[in-house]
């Protein structure tokens, strides 16, 4: 019960306040000199120089394609099922025979595959759930768009050429 007194007894030097200010000013001045003469800074000058995020970074989605530029996705809806943000919307249909290069494995295809990146929380569950390694998250973090419509990635956008994980 009762209160615990956490206040501190200040020494005379601390009470005087001025020495502490002088120490602070010494630090800022040293930084000023380093910045002004030696051009030291921690800022990354963004458009010219980009931050190299780790390999595990989860950015803009894409769907991997095979040699025929056919998407690997078979519209199994596992990503739509697992998605905690409910941002994936798929419409499935039969794949035409000429694209059916792997026989039975690709008899189904998505005729539309929309990801609403404004709802997406980039948890990567879709990537985990995908049995065909079709949907992946690239390392591209430049997701800015001009309109809300642009933020909904359609199948054409998702099938864009991404090297490795971007």
């Amino acid at each position: 019960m009762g209160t615990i007194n956490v206040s501190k007894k200040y020494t005379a030097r601390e009470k005087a306040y001025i020495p502490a200010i002088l120490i602070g000013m010494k630090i800022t001045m040293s930084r000023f000199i380093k910045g002004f003469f030696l051009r030291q800074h921690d800022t990354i000058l963004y458009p010219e120089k980009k931050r190299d995020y780790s390999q595990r970074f989860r950015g803009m989605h894409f769907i991997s394609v095979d040699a025929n530029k056919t998407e690997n996705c078979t519209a199994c809806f596992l990503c739509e099922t697992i998605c905690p943000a409910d941002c994936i919307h798929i419409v499935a249909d039969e794949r035409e025979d000429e694209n059916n290069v792997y026989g039975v494995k690709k008899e189904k295809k998505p005729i539309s595959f929309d990801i609403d990146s404004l709802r997406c929380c980039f948890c990567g569950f879709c990537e985990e759930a995908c049995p065909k390694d079709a949907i992946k998250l690239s390392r591209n973090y430049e997701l800015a768009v001009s309109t809300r419509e642009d933020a909904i990635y359609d199948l054409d956008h998702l099938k864009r050429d991404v090297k490795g994980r971007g």
Partner: protein
Amino acid sequence: MELFDVAQLMAKIVFVVGLSLGVVPIMVWFERRGAAWMQRRVGPNRVGPFGLLQPLADVVKFIFKEDFTPGNANKFFYYMAPMVALIAPLCAMSVIPFGSTAIVNGHEITLQIATMDSGVIFILAFAGLEVYPIILAGWASKNKYAVLGSLRGASQIVSYEISMGLALLSMLIVYGTFNPHEMVSWQAAKYWGCVVNPFGALVFWISIFAETNRLPFDLPEGESELVAGYHLEYGAMKFALFFMAEYVAMIMASALIATLFFGGYGLLPGMSFLVNFISTNFGFGEVGMQNTKAAFEVLSLISKVAFFMFMFVWIRWTVPRFRFDQLMDLGWKILFPLSLINLVIVTLMVYVLNK
């Protein structure tokens, strides 16, 4: 020679006002880049070389912003506040001497816009006027945050004006005059004011931070608790006027402290040698020598002002903002008694030494 008097007066006004306002964009740029350097950042570096044209871009933006007026505002005072904010420190600048005399066409020109014996009182009067734009802006814009900011500003400026006045009073006793010219010549002949009265100089300097609403005493603005304080409802060029007024007030304060405590336009060590050297080598006459001396005096004052401006920036980015009760404690419980005691001591010393 009526015409000549008017012309030289106009020239001095243009020089002082032009210099004060011209320094503002440079100070804005320096404040932002200086802050960046102190914080391991880069700062604005995109517009022009080293980002020097950034203030220009700011101005363009300010001009083209929507010039709105809050619906409930008291229009007259709402528009008056930023004007007063800029005009008051500019008026105070008029009695700051920026040189002894220059000689043009055989006429002696005093390098001071308004030559008056009661110069320091005039400065005090206009410095006291600085509280008005803050109160007016906060009250006229009918916004509770603005009113809170203006209340803080009013009490802060009034509190610190006392210790500032007392510090000034001690110097008036030392110099025995109100005339800034005579103060400068006293310091040139004997010692700088800060050597004679170091406590007074310190108190005065601290008070000036509070008077100009600079960090660590920028409570009227207080972004974290008051959004933007008294100028919350101001946009576009009206805000720009407040913004400029802050820097003009800083320049005025720096010039004032330089004049009162740091020798004013008195030449910096080594400068008198330079003046002699140039005058003799280039064969200037007595007139030329006087004009050269005046030029160096202006340069001397400008460099002192620049130093204090730098101090403003440096301290701003070092010391965190005070809490309001801490501010009032400092003003009333420390600076006020200190300056009062200092005044008594200085008075006694002057009395004893002059006896």
